[in-house]
């Protein structure tokens, strides 16, 4: 195995020439972490970013709702689930923010812990939303199993309005800050519910992941 590594690297080096200068150039790029061209639509901020984020998510067949306060989320989730006739266990990511919401004001009886195949609904919190493409960024961790983003047929993602940012590059900056530069095991960029076009190039929803993606933007996280 090591022989193959050596052979491949030796061949590359004999083609590419002396290493020192090339090493410096690569190191410089790795250190700078400089964004390349960011399109104008990825440079929006504030209200414009929020509007575009929501518009693009809807274009990608996610549904989006906005609530003024976090405590409004559980009843709105109950309403949403009733509107799509979803029934069955609702599992929350082990996120303290989610756990603190007043679920008791609804008939929902959320559970936490390991995601199961029988779960009907998963509720996660996004690290940020990317306005450029209407994309959610979710990072895995003790409070955030990535299985929850895929296994239940309905996925609900809560997002603080202040966490909507312009571009994927802005998202990377937030990720590095929030994880102290230690990349989590999984970073999921999610731009809509699961779909496939593999049968006769016609789009069908709910291929393997969630059939429904509902994003709830929380204006005030207090």
């Amino acid at each position: 195995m090591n022989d193959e590594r050596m052979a491949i690297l030796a061949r590359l080096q004999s083609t590419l020439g002396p290493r020192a200068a090339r090493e410096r150039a690569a190191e410089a790029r790795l250190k700078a972490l400089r964004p390349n061209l960011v399109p104008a639509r990825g440079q929006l901020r504030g209200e414009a970013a929020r509007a575009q984020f929501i518009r693009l998510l809807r274009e990608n067949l996610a549904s989006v709702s906005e609530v003024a306060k976090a405590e409004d989320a559980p009843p709105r989730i109950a309403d949403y689930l009733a509107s799509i006739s979803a029934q069955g266990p609702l599992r929350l990511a082990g996120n303290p923010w989610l756990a603190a919401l007043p679920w008791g004001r609804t008939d929902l009886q959320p559970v936490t812990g390991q995601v199961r195949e029988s779960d009907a609904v998963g509720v996660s919190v996004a690290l940020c939303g990317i306005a450029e493409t209407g994309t959610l960024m979710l990072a895995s961790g003790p409070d955030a199993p990535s299985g929850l983003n895929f296994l239940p047929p309905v996925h609900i993602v809560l997002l603080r309005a202040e966490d909507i940012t312009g571009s994927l590059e802005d998202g990377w900056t937030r990720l590095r800050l929030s994880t102290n530069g230690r990349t989590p095991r999984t970073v999921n960029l999610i731009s809509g519910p699961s779909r496939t076009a593999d049968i006769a190039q016609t789009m069908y929803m709910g291929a393997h992941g969630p059939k429904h993606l509902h994003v709830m933007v929380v204006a005030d996280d207090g």
Partner: protein
Amino acid sequence: MQRNPAAFNANAAEALRNADMQSALRAAEQGFGAKRRKSIERLPEFDALCDQAAAIKDHVLDHLDVYLERFEAQVFATGGMVHWCEDAQSARAKILALCQSVNARTVTKGKSMVSEEIGLNPFLEANNIRPIETDLGEYIIQLADEPPSHIIGPALHKTKDQVSDLFHDHHRKLGFPHRVEEGEALVGEARAILREKYLSADVGVTGANFLIAETGSTVIVTNEGNGDMTQIFPRMHIVLASIEKIVPTLEDAATFLRVLARSATGQEMSVYTTFSTGPKRKGDADGPDQFHVVLLDNGRSRMLATSQREMLRCIRCGACMNHCPVYMAAGGHAYGATYMGPMGSVLTPHFDGLARAQALPFASTFCGRCESVCPMRIPLPRLMRELRNTAHDARLTPARERLWLRLWSWIAQRPPLYHRLARMGLPLLGRLARGRGRFAWLPLASGWTRTRDFPAPQGKSFITQWAARRTPEK
């Protein structure tokens, strides 16, 4: 159809007679082209982004050894392992050994063209490990025991009716007794069957669209979510990727993501883009216990030393084949190789040898659409032309063809003779066409005239007309 690039002409003829294949290709041609155009019109910076992405890839290729070593160090630092493999055989053996190390019986698989390149499935089966393709298109062709006919739409050649039949045949014994025809119902059957596989598989194998040197992350893009289920639930996640998939930083990956989905499916982003870094962390709620990256060379480091190195910029979006008149007539299976269309016609001779694959670089009209839509600015016609030249020089092309070319070049290098023959020949051909302006049949050109008329020369040659026009001005 033969899985042999040397059989391209016979395969293509067969495909042209296949009505199902032709109707599937017509739908693909219109769908892909229109969606790509629309998404690009919405992003004024698209061309500039492509230029940047191509430049980044050139930078990566110039520093490939350094970035690969950095990637390896980062995978190691996050608790994963990297295995370097010279060729297909070595990569297959490595993956088998990893599967056996956890006594794996079933392996779920995300879509990976490199897996097709190394022939992983038949090898695992021969060693009593069951590979289960989970991308719906790959699942369909695994049931049909066929190779992919397109790099991003593997079952693009199948009609819905054919999928109904296949599912009925295979799902009958799995508790789905009735033949279903609705698309939703077909997707639902596959969803139900594969869910259980994700949760019970011992190992998940995925490919990678990108490998990030900065973080040691591997990246996949899907619309179905199958690649995620494949890697979240089994104990071991194996990523199979070729060495040119490296990009330096997360910022650089962002640039590639902006051009990849738009070029491929006309989406602004695929539904799921997933960055996987190492095995699950201490305290993580889920994820694999082991994370392995199998890095495949398989001729790529040698290609880097040739004038064909631009091909290593390819990000496998499929735009070249989606816009290729030859691919859209012949379909992917005609190429008899893992990779098809213009990108495949360049890659296959490097993987299979030009002697076996020399027909492929000739499977192009050189209309140039592939190059014009390639987000990585790969000069595909030039690369195919080089391979044609090499095939000619190595005497791999038909002897009769070389003889005619030699005769032509002998005449063309003698302008007076050439012009005299042209002055004699043109009016003669014109008279032979008897004023109809075209031939229904012409000696030595039956390949052309069998399906269409050959236009007859009209009037004088360009050189004669040019000379006549220039003289009065002086």
